[in-house]
């Protein structure tokens, strides 16, 4: 744990950025999500331009769902989404096969990107994976998953166990391909109550964190103020929180135990805001980061495709200046 903390605490500024690389490389999002070389080239443009302390694969929640049998809609310029949910009921669970990360869907593509990042970037390389409740929602539909929280716990439990196995195997493969960390994206669980989160996400997140050899960052978008204690109990080595969350309170609850990433508004401040907006967002965050070396200044979620690059440059430059870093 000490070694891991040392790695995290070197990370002072690490925005969740991947999609802006698409704009930089002049490619389409679809090309990036379907071709490992294109995706790595886009990420490398971000890496070369900003010399970040951490890089992430391109955020794509459809990878695991596809490998588990979901049919996707693949538009040219927007995120891929699940077109048909393969699991309607417990009966359908029998037909599900555990995905092979080296063979199924686009998991091999992301493994290649992780490997290229590990070999090509001199910084922490992290790969995104879907969280258990989020993957379950993609496989059975968010409405069905959320209704099952109340109406059909047994079906949901079986589905979540399947999802957890799939995520563990995929995360392990990513680690074997050089990922220094996995970032578990669990947005759909962010709308559960603390009790529902504990039962339908946290217990499975604990399994994942324990089974994967590299550190895990748990990222949940939106207002997760009430879920912070539960997120801390998952044994993930870091949490990443969105702009609606009170960072000061989070740090008080964390008490230095794990790393916290966050939480500048990626849309209104970084992508489409002004430098004054960025200054405003950094004011309190930098002050907190000076007092808490377990705070990594980051964005509340991945930055949009058409993020203003001047803003992103300013965010890096100004954060480093305020924290007394030189790069």
């Amino acid at each position: 744990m000490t070694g891991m903390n040392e790695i995290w605490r070197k990370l002072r500024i690490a925005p969740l950025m991947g999609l802006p690389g698409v704009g930089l490389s002049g490619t389409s999002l679809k090309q990036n999500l379907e071709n490992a070389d294109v995706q790595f080239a886009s990420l490398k443009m971000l890496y070369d331009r900003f010399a970040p302390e951490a890089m992430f694969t391109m955020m794509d929640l459809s990878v695991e769902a596809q490998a588990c049998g979901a049919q996707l809609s693949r538009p040219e310029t927007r995120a891929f989404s699940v077109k048909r949910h393969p699991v309607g009921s417990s009966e359908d669970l029998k037909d599900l096969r555990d995905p092979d990360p080296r063979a199924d869907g686009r998991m091999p593509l992301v493994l290649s990107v992780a490997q290229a990042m590990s070999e090509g970037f001199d910084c922490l390389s992290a790969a995104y994976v879907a969280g258990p409740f989020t993957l379950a929602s993609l496989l059975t539909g968010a409405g069905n998953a959320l209704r099952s929280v109340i109406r059909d716990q047994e079906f949901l439990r079986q589905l979540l166990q399947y999802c957890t196995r799939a995520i563990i195997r995929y995360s392990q493969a990513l680690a074997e391909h050089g990922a220094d960390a996995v970032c578990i994206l669990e947005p759909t669980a962010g709308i559960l109550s603390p009790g529902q989160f504990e039962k339908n996400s946290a217990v499975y997140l604990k399994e994942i964190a324990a089974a994967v050899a590299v550190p895990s960052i748990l990222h949940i978008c939106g207002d997760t103020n009430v879920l912070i204690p539960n997120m801390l109990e998952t044994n993930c080595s870091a949490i990443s929180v969105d702009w609606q969350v009170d960072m000061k309170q989070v740090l008080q609850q964390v008490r230095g135990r794990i790393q916290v990433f966050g939480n500048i508004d990626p849309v209104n401040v970084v992508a489409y805001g002004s430098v004054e907006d960025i200054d405003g967002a950094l004011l309190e965050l930098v002050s907190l980061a000076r007092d808490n070396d377990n705070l990594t200044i980051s964005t509340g979620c991945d930055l949009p495709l058409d993020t203003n690059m001047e803003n992103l440059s300013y965010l890096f430059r100004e954060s480093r200046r305020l924290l007394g870093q030189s790069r």
Partner: protein
Amino acid sequence: MKELSDLAELIKQGEVAESIETVKKIIDEIAVEQIIGAMTAAMRELGEQFEKKEVFIPELLVASDVITELMPLLEPYILKRNMQRKNVVIGTVEGDIHEIGKNIVSIVLKAEGYNVIDLGTDVGIGQFLAAASEQGASIIGLSTLMTTTMHVQQDLIAELVERGERDGYFVIIGGAPVSSRWADRIGADAYCADAFSTAALLNSLP
């Protein structure tokens, strides 16, 4: 009235079959306005609990399911009594298939007595504007959950301006990546964080 308070409780508990049974029993004896009033009361109470973080989306969803099942039973009575209802066109914008939030807004507004024309998900700008025009709706609700599709909200407002029809519509936006700042930026009339603030806002309009 006990039947109405029982119905409100059943709705809050998400009890579909029992709610239907109750409504079938009372529909010929109690004015439809009062039944809708019980639905409204149930959803408002859930809304207050939601605001206090005492209930969460799964509870809202199962309660919304009850309202969805009850509305077809009530529609003939609503038509018979010629109740005046404001028309609202709502949908998730083109390229986005997320629907939970939009569905809950739709149901809460129905429970508040609005005539909601829910166009579903992946709805194009043309579809929104055609539906609003055909249905005589002056309120348009645009939902999106993704940063890659939030611009469609902006494009719809630009299209209204282009057509010289901007003043004819009250455009509300919602969804995880958007905010009141985004609403200001794109010239929307309002941003609403959830179904209950949407209902409160619309109820406050003249």
